[in-house]
């Protein structure tokens, strides 16, 4: 109790120095909060974009489709799969697709792309293609419509209303071709995506490659992204070996690796902040101990035990750490709130971000773990930084301390 009072008063003896420490702790906390929320925001957006543009939470194919994405690997019995899906309560919506690789040609040039046959209305419930249309319209239902990405349109030198020819290998081993009219152009978060995807109605794709009414993929959204692993297991059990059920974790492993690397690089960043802080505290507390050597000697003389002197110095550092953390937290939240609602427009760096897959406006996201870690770790670090100065203080012989001038 009394140590606390003494420590509180001691830290205000040199106001300037204490304020400097508090401010630097606060800046560290604010920086941590902002980088953490921003990076979590980027990660979430990366996920949402990937999931929302095409991947969805899960996909079902014939077993082996992923290794060899040919039309011959169509889903053997779509009805069985749909029945299984309907019996699985964790599944929110699904959409049937035909996935083709082929060539899309304009009058001038051609490009190798993925042509996805979709059920327009159903697909709009899963992915954002409809809302990403920037000119023209979404697929309206007639089989020979096509929507393509902005970058692809530029590459092919085509515009709305132009006709393009699609070529793809058919079920019986020939090359099928058909003419599609561009009804819409989309622009998603990712310029890469916009270069290689085109969407046509399911029937259009089926006709192109002679699939009849068969499909090659069913995309699924579950009710909760975090339990997708369980839904996957459940479906796989129902469907058996003939089918492969893949979750987004299987489908975009690279992103997970990226996120992992990113988080590790953040640890380095936090470590640097932490070390700078510890060194700052060591320095400050050493100065404050040396300025008070005589007084510490007197405290020893009147019977304050070493343990209490040690704690007094730790409490002083901890108080500075807590004050700084509080100030930094308030500042961080005050900066975070408007950013979270308006986002940070990083279009200056948009090209890089676009291929990174986050979009150009980042909305920071507050996650308990990242921020709480900082809130507890940083005061802890101030105590860590005070250990050596406190040790120096109690190592003094009282008389040498008292005599010290």
């Amino acid at each position, binding site marked *: 109790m*009394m140590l606390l009072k*003494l420590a509180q*008063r001691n830290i205000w*003896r040199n106001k300037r120095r204490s304020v400097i420490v508090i401010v630097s702790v606060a800046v560290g906390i604010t920086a941590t909060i902002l980088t953490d929320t921003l990076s979590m925001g980027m990660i979430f957006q990366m996920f949402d974009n990937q999931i929302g543009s095409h991947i969805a939470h899960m996909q079902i194919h014939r077993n082996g489709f992923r290794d060899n994405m040919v039309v011959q690997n169509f889903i053997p019995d779509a009805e069985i799969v749909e029945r299984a899906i309907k019996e699985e309560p964790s599944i929110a919506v699904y959409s049937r697709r035909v996935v083709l690789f082929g060539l899309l040609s304009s009058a001038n040039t051609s490009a190798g792309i993925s042509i996805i046959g979709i059920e327009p209305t159903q697909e709009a419930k899963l992915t954002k293609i409809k809302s990403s249309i920037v000119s023209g319209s979404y697929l309206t239902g007639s089989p020979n419509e096509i929507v393509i990405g902005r970058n692809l349109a530029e590459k092919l030198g085509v515009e709305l209303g132009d006709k393009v020819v699609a070529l793809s290998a058919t079920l019986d081993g020939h090359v099928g071709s058909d003419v599609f009219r561009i009804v819409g152009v989309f622009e998603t978060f990712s310029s890469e995506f916009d270069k290689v995807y085109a969407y046509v109605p399911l029937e259009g794709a089926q006709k192109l490659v002679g699939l009849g009414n068969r499909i090659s993929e069913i995309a699924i959204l579950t009710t909760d992204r975090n339990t997708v692993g369980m839904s996957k297991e459940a479906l796989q059990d129902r469907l058996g070996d003939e089918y492969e059920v893949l979750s987004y974790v299987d489908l975009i492993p690279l992103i997970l690796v990226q996120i992992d690397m990113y988080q590790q690089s953040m640890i380095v960043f936090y470590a640097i902040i932490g070390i700078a802080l510890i060194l700052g505290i060591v320095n400050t507390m050493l100065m404050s101990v040396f300025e008070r050597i005589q007084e510490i000697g007197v405290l020893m003389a*009147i019977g304050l*035990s*070493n343990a209490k002197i040690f704690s007094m110095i730790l409490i002083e550092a901890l108080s500075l750490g807590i004050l700084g953390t509080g100030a930094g937290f308030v500042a961080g939240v005050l900066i975070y709130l408007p950013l979270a609602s308006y986002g940070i427009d990083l279009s200056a760096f948009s090209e890089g971000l676009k291929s990174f897959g986050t979009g150009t406006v980042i909305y920071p996201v507050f996650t308990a773990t990242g921020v709480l870690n900082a809130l507890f770790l940083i005061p802890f670090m101030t105590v860590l930084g005070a250990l050596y100065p406190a040790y120096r203080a109690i190592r003094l012989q009282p008389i040498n301390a008292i005599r010290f001038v």
Partner: protein
Amino acid sequence: MEIIKTINLEKTYHDNGVPVHAVRGISMTVHAGDFLVIAGPSGSGKTTLLNLIGALDLPTAGSISFEGEELSSMSRRELSAFRLHKLGFIFQAYNLIPVLTAIENIEFTMMLLGISEEERNERSLNIMEDLRIAELADKRPNEMSGGQQQRVAVARAIVTNPSIVLADEPTANLDTATGSSLLDLMEKMNKERNITFIFSSHDPQVIERGRRLFVLRDGRIEQEVSR
């Protein structure tokens, strides 16, 4: 009753490699209730001897015992408990805790001893009354004169009812009148509370009042007077 006993106490400092024999073989006995002055010229070892008795410094040779218990056998923790429970210090430079007010300085050691708030209040008010410093209660040391600070220091030293108060040149920074009234107070505490006082001083008015007097020269007792 014997309270302090030293046998062939020695303390040698090393000043840049040169040995300085500050105390060379002092054997003395202090009795409970003594009002004892250690006098002697500057550099004769008075402060050193006092610090050894107060366990603020470790002897090079010889022994010191308090109520029969050897100080050299105590751990740092026990020594700090010994100082807390049994000793009171008064320094030439007052050495109050600058961030605490007068009353907080006085209550500080009582808090360390775990004395209840009521009792702390009562004791500190009484002693401040006694030492006529009641009006200083809420002042910080830098708002007080030297004499006032030294009274607070005396209050701090005796409020815990220690066995011994060690006072190193307590009057050196005070004018004669202030010094004299401070000595009156300490004599009163000595009589009323039976607190043993050991002074180091070359102030004649301190030496005059000592009921026992040790005169040091070159780290040895040159003369012992009882009156």
